[in-house]
């Protein structure tokens, strides 16, 4: 396969980028809670991801996946709980804090400007200049390098408008944009939701390669098949709480389905008041 040499290259880079102490979480949320008025969206959730691993975040609608991610991204602030990043306790009050730490989120709508070309999108807001003039050559080179390192080979020209790309190619551009900025944790929100079989394959391969590059990868998904295919561990949320974290190797899909729909919780919403009385 044509990917072989690139994988070698990726492996070499993995060695470079992966921190020495493996297994310790790069991002570690402890006991985080978030309440919107009367709704307890998250209740004392623990969530962590290590460098070089893919953590899937699964759960039914309203389980709190988006709230958790938005808290990490700095769009909301958690009401309680701590966030540790690379072993240090950090505060994330706005999206800039999270970007400064090296956390990048690829949202479902991708946030690409359709009228701009691939390079312009990848460097949007962080354009390289040569005096006052855009340094197009340098930006194109860097974009190409990043896409090559992720083995994205389906893009013919980086100068075509994003409007003309397929769903999978757009996803690849959005992911490459996220990893180009020395990011350490990449969070992908339903990256395969709107894609066909072949494109889903490409995106999952891409997700795996990100982890092989030494990044911590969080993938939010509804699709357990995808989760099992690409993730190392799976965190299940239900009704705003964490049911458990499952190792992919030692769990089955039935187990996870059961956890999503009927997993046991320490704290049942609506029952607290009566229980504590």
């Amino acid at each position, binding site marked *: 396969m044509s990917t072989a040499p690139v994988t070698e290259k990726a492996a070499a880079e993995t060695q470079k980028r992966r921190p020495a102490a493996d297994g310790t979480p790069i991002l570690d949320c402890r006991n985080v809670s978030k309440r919107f008025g009367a709704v307890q969206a998250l209740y004392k959730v623990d969530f962590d991801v290590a460098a070089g691993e893919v953590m899937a975040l699964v759960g039914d609608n309203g389980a709190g996946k988006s709230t958790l991610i938005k808290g990490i991204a700095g769009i909301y602030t958690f009401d309680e709980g701590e966030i540790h990043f690379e072993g240090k306790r950090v505060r994330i009050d706005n999206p800039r804090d999270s970007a400064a730490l090296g956390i990048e989120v690829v949202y479902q709508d991708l946030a690409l400007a359709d009228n701009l070309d691939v390079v312009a999108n990848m460097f949007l807001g962080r354009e390289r200049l040569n005096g006052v*003039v855009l340094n197009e050559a340098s930006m194109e080179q860097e974009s190409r390098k990043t896409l090559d390192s992720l083995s994205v*080979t389906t893009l013919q020209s980086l100068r075509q408008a994003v409007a003309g790309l397929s769903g999978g190619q757009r996803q690849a551009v959005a992911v490459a944009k996220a990893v180009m900025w020395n990011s350490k944790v990449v969070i992908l929100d339903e990256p395969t939701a709107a894609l066909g079989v072949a494109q889903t394959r490409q995106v999952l391969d891409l997700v795996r390669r990100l982890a092989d590059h030494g990044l911590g990868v969080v993938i939010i998904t509804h699709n357990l098949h995808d989760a099992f295919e690409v993730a190392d561990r799976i965190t299940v949320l239900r009704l705003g709480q964490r049911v458990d974290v499952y190792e992919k190797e030692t769990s089955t899909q039935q187990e996870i389905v059961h956890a999503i729909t009927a997993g046991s919780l320490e704290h049942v919403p609506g029952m607290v008041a009566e229980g504590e009385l």
Partner: protein
Amino acid sequence: MIEAQGTPESPQVEAEGLRETLEEMVRGWVARLRVGDWGALPIFVGLIALALLFGSLDSNFYTAQNFVNLLLQMAGVTSIAIGVVFVLLIGEIDLSVGFVSGVGAVVMTLLLRPGEQDWPWWAAVGTALIICAVIGLLHGLIITKARVPSFVVTLAGYLTWSGVVLILTTEASSSGTIRIQDDVVLRISNDYLAAWAGWLFLALVVGGYVVLELLKVRSRRASGLGHRPITVTLIQAAAMAIVGALGVYYANTNRGVPYVVVIVSVFLIFWTFVASRTRFGRHVYAVGGNPEAARRAGINVDRIRIAVFMISSFMACVGGIILASRLRSVDPGTGGGQLLLNAIAAAVIGGTSLFGGFGRVASAVLGAAVVVMVANGMDLLNLASGWKFVITGGVLLAAVLLDAFAKRARAASGVA
């Protein structure tokens, strides 16, 4: 072995890339046409069709006299349309440009009056430009901070500034007409380059274009990236030189190349540079294409919007001064009439999308050429005003429909 794997730096791949580019460029062009990025193609077709039509209907249309008139008539509309292009690029509209241009022209004229303010021309022109930029700032602040649609804010501006023009002109003179007596300002639209200066101007433009393109090729080659073949650049430059030379030669057989052509060209080149080569320009396109993406990328979207409304009012003022210089006076109707619609029509007909994100500054010139050619041709034919309105409306509608079809084609290819 790793390097041989399709990295663009390898000389072998680059050589192949070079040989393919001419074909690739044509193919890329066809591909862009298919996805609805028609650029300037429809307009060139339209311009040629109009020229043939009017030329066959009236023998005066092709005369050198009329050619120079066309250039003079285009200058004001083109300047205003350049500002409108920026507004359309961010997906907004500015309905106030007509009367803002009027305010600029009237302010300048009042400041120039001998025996009254009697300012030197540069101070009067500079003050008018600054006042108009501040008007744009005001529009932009209201649109962004109060979150009112630009349509409404600039419609209010349309009424307000028309009132200001009326007040200023009637206060200053009972008839409302104030003559411009400053020689420099009058020469803007009423004087012509010497024959040799016209040729020098053309040489500078074409030469500058070639040098810039060659520098671009050199920097891309130094970075190991593909670039378009130099022959294409040379063909383009040759086409520019031939068309330009015909224009200069023809203008020189009459009065010569008008000064305004140089002035408008300078603005055109400057704003093209801003739109296509600077970070600000890139952000303008991003805000027009997807404001949410721009916001998440850390772009201060409000600031871009405000700046664009300032550009719009500033360029309106430039156009207003050019038009006032041509008429040698201002009156209560300055900036009114068809000016606003002609400027917006020029931008849209030139290929700038009303939906934001697509278009070029140069489209202002091409669109203005169509608008002015239609008006000029109908004047030569002595058509009744009613018919002129009907036909101008038809041309604008055709351009907007074309834009809508192009947008549909883009949407279809975006989904595919």
